[in-house]
């Protein structure tokens, strides 16, 4: 099956092209420009909604959008807030829209069954990283709406590039769902393989090896939507990936020390300048 002819001939291809055009026009209208009016922004929102529905319909006709109402709701929240994040003129509102995106993404992760990551996204991102962004905004935002928040670099080219990239990704995802599962998917997954390998090892009396007994049930189930999801993820994280966890800890420490060092060095040079000025 030739993907190009599929894209140009079939109605889903036409729908996809229309969605890409609508998204590009919507992004171009919504991004901050000198020629903005209220009417153009409203038209941009309308076109954005049309593009969103168009992409969902394209995915549906390509056979890759389900009917899970909860998923569609949280995904819609994430996508609409993500759009608002990049087009809002005030950076503070942008950060708050990003918090909304995080809530949506957290919902998506929960629907997918990744309970720990869903909660961690809220706690780490919205609770820590985003608050840090807001602190910096309060420290650094000049009063009034800055002129550089009301213009953007090459909005037309960037909107077209982003929309075309999204169209290509949608097309490849649609082909992914239409195609036969590749060989790697038909093979038993690593989890099942390990579970199969661990099954005879149970009889071989490895009770003293705690990591094996901890990980094996998680692998055997292969289902991360169970009640012990966090325990299984923790066993995997602190079992197979223990060294990476230690490296991540060192990375956090280095970032902390580096951030403090840069700030204090900046303050030192400022006082030096003041002393020289005197």
């Amino acid at each position, binding site marked *: 099956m030739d993907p190009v002819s599929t894209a140009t001939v079939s109605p889903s291809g036409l729908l996809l092209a229309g969605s890409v055009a609508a998204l590009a026009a919507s992004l171009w209208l919504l991004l901050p420009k000198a020629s903005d009016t209220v009417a153009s922004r409203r038209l941009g929102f309308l076109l954005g909604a049309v593009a969103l529905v168009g992409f969902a319909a394209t995915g549906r006709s390509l056979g890759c*959008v389900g009917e899970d109402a909860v998923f569609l709701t949280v995904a819609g929240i994430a996508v609409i807030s993500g759009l608002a994040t990049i087009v809002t003129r005030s950076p503070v509102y942008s950060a708050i829209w990003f918090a909304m995106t995080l809530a949506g993404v957290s919902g998506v992760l929960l629907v997918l069954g990744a309970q720990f990551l869903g909660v961690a996204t809220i706690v780490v991102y919205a609770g820590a990283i985003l608050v840090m962004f807001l602190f910096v905004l309060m420290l650094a935002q*000049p009063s009034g709406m800055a002129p550089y928040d*009301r213009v953007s670099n090459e909005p037309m080219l*960037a909107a077209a590039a982003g929309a075309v990239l999204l169209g290509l990704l949608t097309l490849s995802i649609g082909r992914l769902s239409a195609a036969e599962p590749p060989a790697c998917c038909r093979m038993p997954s690593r989890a099942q393989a390990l579970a199969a390998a661990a099954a005879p090892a149970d009889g071989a009396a490895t009770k003293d090896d705690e990591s094996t007994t901890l990980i094996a049930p998680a692998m055997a189930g292969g289902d991360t939507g169970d009640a012990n999801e966090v325990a299984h993820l923790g066993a995997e994280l602190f079992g197979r990936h223990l060294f990476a966890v230690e490296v991540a800890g060192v990375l956090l420490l280095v970032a902390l020390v580096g951030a403090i060092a840069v700030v204090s060095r900046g303050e030192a040079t400022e006082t030096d300048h003041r002393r020289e000025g005197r």
Partner: protein
Amino acid sequence: MIPATMLTNALLVGAVLFCLGLVGILTRRNLIVMFLSAELMLQGVSVTLVAWSRYHGDWGGQVLVVFVLTVAACEAAVALVFVLQAFASTGRLDASAWQALREENLPRVIDHELPADDRVVPTWPHLSPAGVVPEGDDSRSLERDHV
């Protein structure tokens, strides 16, 4: 394990978030909004990784997202320090304030026409005066009526 339709659903959401973040980081000029756009791209990649992880019943994708969270925290801390330093030296959060670092063959960014500031200044309620007029009005100069 999740069904294939759920996988492609999540992949589509991840793709949309990634592309929106890409457009944001290409166009916006505020350094903070550029970093927010980068975080948006990270969110898209995280959704994709978790979807594949659940589809294959393998924990590797979710473990990778844990490390993405860690590195994003480090990156935000270090990057925001640099943003603060940049603001201290130029007084702006404008990426174009650093265009002296651009390539030689690129034109200089000049703001030919700036849009009018069409903010609607809110009308604050007027309270009837009561009690003693406080002395000193210095604190009001620090207030901002908008963000």
